[in-house]
């Protein structure tokens, strides 16, 4: 239990740090009209080291952080991240054999899902 608590704290901290770093990189890239939108990055770590309950909490907190940062309706990233976290975890439980391409593939799929939601939502 104690280990899970410290894990969720570390995951949330890493996610917040990553979000801030991406925002700073985007701030620089704006000169060339490029914007990195990578919510998929926050799924893999949570799904690998957190249990379902803690993973949902971490996804919701990270999602709210993203919503505030990107000015999306509060809850959009929070709920969608938590939902995709559950799907990815479920998928990982059914496919236990590790393959190097899997996390990359998953991230690309998750980013595309968010991108499509973004396009149709706005």
């Amino acid at each position: 239990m104690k280990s899970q608590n410290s894990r969720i704290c570390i995951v949330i901290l890493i996610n917040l740090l990553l979000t801030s770093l991406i925002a700073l990189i985007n701030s620089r890239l704006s000169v060339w009209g490029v914007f990195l939108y990578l919510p998929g990055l926050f799924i893999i770590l949570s799904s690998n080291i957190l249990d379902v309950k803690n993973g949902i909490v971490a996804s919701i907190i990270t999602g709210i952080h993203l919503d505030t940062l990107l000015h999306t309706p509060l809850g959009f990233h929070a709920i969608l991240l938590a939902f995709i976290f559950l799907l990815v975890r479920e998928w990982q439980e059914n496919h236990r054999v590790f393959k190097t391409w899997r996390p990359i593939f998953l991230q690309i799929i998750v980013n595309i899902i968010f991108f499509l939601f973004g396009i149709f939502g706005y």
Partner: protein
Amino acid sequence: MAKKSNNRKVKPFLYLGFFAICWWGIPSSIKLFTQSTFREFQAPIWEISSRIEDLSNYWGHLSDSKRTLITKGKEFKRLTSDLELQKIRSKEIVTEINRLQNLHQSISRLNKLLNINSSQNFESVIARVSVRKMSGWWQQMTIRKGYNNRLQIGNGVIYNKGVIGRLINVDSRSAEIEIITNPNFRIVAHFGNDTRPVTFQGNGIDLGGQPYGIVLDVPYDIIPKKGEPLQLITSSLGGNFPHGMPIGNVYKLEGAEDGLFKTGKVIIDRSINEVLEVTLLIPE
């Protein structure tokens, strides 16, 4: 056994669905409070990063080579001699200022006589940009000043090339600017030599980084000449900007769907993507 396992799998989704419904029903005041708390939490990160950047620039100059220092010294000497010339010119400027002040007074007198409100005055506050968020869908900037500096939601924001946006969120030590390219940004505008109001709306940033907007409700007799774009400027009708601040250029106008007015693409200066400092206009 299989049913039990399925229940275990479905449970988290049900809980999340329940959470989503609860979230949807939460009063917007609580959501606004949460959002504001997260924004206040993020603000120091942007401020620190922006200050570190300033500091690294400063340290970068500290380690300038002798050759760079000699070049800078030469530039400094040139500027000093230019300053001497400017001092001589200042007498002429003082006379000009007096003349303009007299004119301003007579305009105010005439306005009073005609019962017209004199144009609104603004106090300017300079702020550093801490982070730019320029995605294809929404464009914002965060600055290092907030309501501690008397900023308010809706204040107009300008930079050396014209209008940049208006404040949409103001926290204690930071504020967010909605950039003119944001599709939610809409203001009254005028064309350079025309007094009739038109509507300007943001429309995003191209993949190459070209910011643009659209102009709506343009009267049919306004036609841009080839090679001579029409300059779109702000109107004082909105109240957030003074009259005449540049917004962008219009090269082409097309008939709108209603058949009564024309519409066109407004090309905004690219430097909007790399602004480091902005001026906030606080109505007096």
